[in-house]
């Protein structure tokens, strides 16, 4: 498995990504390479820059410097006569189609049914007909175990169900890469499992995923690599086994002591 994946094409390539807010440097030059089919868990203390980094990967945050490439295409910049020029939001929107994102607060559209939430990307981004998009959407909802909830509005669904709809909505765009920003942090404990189950299934289907989460169970069961980000830098990047049994850095040990 590992051998396969090291030979697989690179999906994400982040180089020296930096970002400051009001004079505070939140990301201090982050490097990350993720290959097709890999599941990378990003761990780290809160405020350490994990979520900010994740959001630079689809340009919801603009890095101050450094580069992010998805499937070889630099995000947020276009090549014009050998010069890298910042793209307009309209062009960045096109680049984002390759990336799906799942948010901590689900962010489902409250005025649309579960079915129309899932169909919204294909309809409004790709121009697929509503009927066709809904057909595909109902299949995706069935896949996440919500075949009977197609007509429900988000307010009528539990947190775990909402998050599964959100995953289906991201999948509807057939992304090359899925980003998860603390997908289970806003859930009641008994609902965490149903969301993680879906994520584990996606991994089995070969989806490339970067997951910011504190779910250690998921780290051990489904992650190929654990990346530990603290103080805006990547401190460790290794297999879950090595990460938990033999962390190299003092900061990692302190973090593990606190959460395990």
């Amino acid at each position: 498995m590992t051998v396969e994946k090291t030979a697989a094409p690179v999906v994400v390539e982040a180089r020296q990504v930096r970002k400051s807010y009001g004079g505070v440097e939140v990301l201090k030059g982050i490097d990350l390479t993720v290959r097709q089919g890999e599941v990378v868990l990003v761990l780290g203390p809160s405020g350490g820059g994990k979520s900010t980094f994740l959001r630079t990967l689809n340009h919801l945050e603009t890095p101050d410097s450094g580069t992010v490439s998805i499937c070889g295409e630099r995000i947020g910049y276009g090549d014009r006569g050998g010069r890298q020029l910042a793209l307009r939001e309209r062009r960045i929107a096109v680049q984002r189609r390759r990336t799906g994102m799942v948010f901590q607060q689900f962010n489902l559209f409250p005025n649309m049914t579960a079915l129309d939430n899932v169909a919204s990307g294909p309809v409004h981004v790709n121009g697929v007909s509503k009927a066709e998009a809904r057909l595909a959407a109902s299949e995706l909802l069935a896949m996440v175990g919500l075949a009977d909830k197609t007509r429900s509005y988000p307010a009528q669904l539990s947190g775990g169900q909402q998050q599964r709809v959100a995953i289906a909505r991201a999948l509807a765009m057939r992304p090359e890469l899925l980003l998860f920003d603390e997908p289970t942090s806003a859930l009641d404990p008994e609902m965490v499992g149903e969301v993680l189950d879906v994520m584990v299934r996606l991994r089995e289907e070969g989806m490339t995923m970067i997951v910011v989460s504190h779910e250690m169970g998921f780290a051990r069961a489904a992650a190929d690599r654990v990346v530990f980000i603290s103080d805006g830098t990547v401190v460790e990047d290794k297999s879950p086994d090595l990460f938990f049994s033999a962390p190299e850095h003092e900061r990692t040990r302190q973090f593990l002591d606190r959460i395990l």
Partner: protein
Amino acid sequence: MWSWDAFISFLSNPQLIQGAWTTIWLTTVSMALALPLAVLVALGRASRFGPVRLVTGFYVWLMRGTPLLVQLVIIYTGLPQLGLRLGVISAALTGLVLNEAAYLSEIVRAGVLSVPRGQSEAARALGMPPWKVFRVVVMPQALRVMVPPLGNSFNGLLKTTTLVSVISVEELLRRTQFAVQTNFRVLEGLTAAALYYLAMTTLWGLVQRWLEARVGRGHQTGPSRGRRSRSATVPALELETR
């Protein structure tokens, strides 16, 4: 002495009925034109470009800071001095639309600001270009918050149109005044007119309730799992009156 006969003849007076139609027409057309303008102004006030913010901010400040009556007289009677001559109806519509749009833009702005940031982020993450994010995700949700104060504005506008009688638009009030001049039954005539206004605002109240139910989809439906947190009541927006 109050005369029921006079009152009833005012109520069925074709002049008044014609005037009521003009009032409804003026209100509806002004609102229909003012709303898109208000959206543009609201977007302008949130623009990244300083000059755009400055111009739209100045417009709202000017329109809200001066009486509509003064604006109407300037447009109809004053502008011809500069060679710009507008017909009665055009002048009335221009004044009403420009004035109303300034107020509505504040409602639009509040509505847009009420939509959580996560909503537009989710739409952007799907790959929606900016105008789709606005039209598909932000605007429908903003509308839910905007409909009650917009309905309030429509109600207000029905009555504000009386002001255009001053520049001789033959709406309900002016027609009533004409009709009154034939028999000098002022009390009966204006009570009949008041009743017409009341009927129009009442009717509008029903339309508004229907609209609120329509834009509230997904919010007021009974949750099956006791999750009501998102169906929070619409925040009341204070409206300044002219």
